[in-house]
């Protein structure tokens, strides 16, 4: 008898539970949605709005000027230079962090005394703030007079190089690589540690040694984490700013002016909010197209 009562109780509860699920959930979601709108959509809409105005902080007021900002943007040669610079920066740092990240991860995955300390040191650059890293590189390492590299070169009887004037983009790529190789190392090292030891032993039985083992067993296993590194680093590197600002200021000329830095110049050097907004909108479209391809590639890898 008792059991029968309990059963009917449960069934009514289930029914009322189902009823509760039909309650309108919109009021519950609304606070979060409103916050999100205020936080990200409104600024975006505002940027799009400004991009159609001739809005210079020095010569107010702002006047609607149709698509003129966009026409200037696409006819200006510096826009295309900036895009090229952005691409060089992203691809350069990605190449460095994947190649060196993989090599360092493979090294650190071996057992040797002091491995934990070595791992910590290898990861450490990632925790240094960008401006600090940039200043260290600029003043202590790459400086032709007081820098370590210059000192080495004089020791070898060579002339020190003024890195930021002779190879400005390379210098920026080196500094960003120094910061992002540890990130790739960290992700690839964890991936290496999750490689099934039985698989490695099976490969040993199958006669795959050294490079063959790396090529047929280890690298295929790393394909997935590598695609994740590519995606995450691309997102961060497209908006890279601090190191350029601290070291080269986008120069010499426009040699290190990336799209991000170009927007900064337009907005805060030229005070032209209108054309900066137009470049910003263009950058958003560009980043989204890139993200679409990347995410598609990564998700294909994740499924495999």
């Amino acid at each position, binding site marked *: 008898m008792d059991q029968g009562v309990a059963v009917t109780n449960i069934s009514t509860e289930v029914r009322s539970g189902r009823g509760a699920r039909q309650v309108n959930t919109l009021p519950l979601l609304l606070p979060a949605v409103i916050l999100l709108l205020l936080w990200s959509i409104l600024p975006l809409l505002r940027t799009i709005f400004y991009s159609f105005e001739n809005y210079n902080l020095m010569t107010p007021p702002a006047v609607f000027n149709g698509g003129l900002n966009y026409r200037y943007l696409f006819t200006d040669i510096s826009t295309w230079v900036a895009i090229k610079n952005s691409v060089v920066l992203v691809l350069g740092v990605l190449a460095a962090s994947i190649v060196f990240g993989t090599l360092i991860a493979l090294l650190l995955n071996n057992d040797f005394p002091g491995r934990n300390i070595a791992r910590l040191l290898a990861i450490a650059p990632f925790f240094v703030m960008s401006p600090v890293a940039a200043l260290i590189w600029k003043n202590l390492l790459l400086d032709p007079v007081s820098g370590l590299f210059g000192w080495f070169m004089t020791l070898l009887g060579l002339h020190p190089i003024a890195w930021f004037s002779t190879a400005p983009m390379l210098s920026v790529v080196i500094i960003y690589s120094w910061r992002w190789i540890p990130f790739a190392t960290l992700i690839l090292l964890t991936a290496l540690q999750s490689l*099934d030891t*039985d*698989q490695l*032993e*099976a*490969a*040993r*039985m*199958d*006669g*795959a*040694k050294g490079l*063959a083992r790396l090529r*047929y*067993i280890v690298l*295929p*296993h790393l*394909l997935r984490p590598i695609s994740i590194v590519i995606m995450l680093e691309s997102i961060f590197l497209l908006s890279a700013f601090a190191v350029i600002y601290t070291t080269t200021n986008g120069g010499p000329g426009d040699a290190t002016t990336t799209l991000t830095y170009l927007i900064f110049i337009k907005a805060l050097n030229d005070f032209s909010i209108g054309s900066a907004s137009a470049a910003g909108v263009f950058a958003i479209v560009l980043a989204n197209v890139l993200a679409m391809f990347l995410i598609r590639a990564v998700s294909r890898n994740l499924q*495999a």
Partner: protein
Amino acid sequence: MAKLILQNVEKRYETFHAIKGIDLSIDDREFVVFVGPSGCGKTTLLRMIAGLEDITGGDFSIDGVRANDIPPDKRGLAMVFQTYALYPHMTVAENMGFALKMAKVPRDEIKAKVAHAAAMLQLDKVLDRRPKALSGGQRQRVAIGRAIVRNPKGFLFDEPLSNLDAALRVQMRTELVKLNKQLQTTMIYVTHDQIEAMTMADRIVVLHAGIVEQVGSPLELYNNPANLFVAGFIGSPKMNLLEGVVTARDDQHVEVKLDDAGNVIVMGDRIAVAPGTRVTVGMRPEHTALVSDGPIGGVADFVEHLGNETLVYVKRPDGQQMIVKADDLAGVRMGDAVTMAPKGDRSVLFGPDGKALLRREFHLH
């Protein structure tokens, strides 16, 4: 085509002596099963034969050639791992042909060999799939196929069936034995499951704490366990082991007064044991019967009806449990007082050191 000989083979880790000197000779085409409880060293021994673990003492030879220091891929032995260890990014065909690819065998030859092995294992339709898209049984076959393709001198199996469901396990058991006959190669098979050992092996090697307890055919081990460990390990349900004192003996019989029970007689040819010796009598559940006025008494604690047989768990006055295999008509209920008698000609006698006192020749019919 491989005769494997182990002579005083040892494995020492820094703080642990895993394999304590094993002598074993495995004949060509033989199906040998290493069995033992977990931690007994059976997998370590297999991995030493494979070359995945160093041999720290003794000699190991394949076909008369010392193999201690030959790298694993040059020993001509193929291993099937418990987890299968398939390469997830390769198709079934690539998985199976990988060893040949590493050995720089021409592409056409690899393809032909893979196709041959795939046909043998009914994998022809899934050759282009990745391991992820296969069922557990198919993955198992791919792992075996990967070994077959190499045309090895011997196969090493490390608990290969433990990840399969019960029905598939029984099926794969017979298929592996057939494969052994078909390929005519030596096979070593590691398991903790004594039923797998009994059903598949030509010879069973019982390992315990890094030493060999007994080597023999399944029925030898079942009928003539060399010591108490083998007696307790082989056979299901376990052999009943009761202690007692020898009261009399002649050339054909030994009479033992069991503790907390009456006298039982163990038959055997000239068993060397003096009256007064403390011994252990081993009686299998299937060789013990419920009888009225039997020498061993107790209370039926639990009765399991399996249909073809009934297992009666009897609690003895000293608290020990004894198992009797009865038929379903026995009519015993929980709580009934029962008495039992062992079959004297199937009982085994163990001396105070735990070694069997009785070594009858057992003839297979």
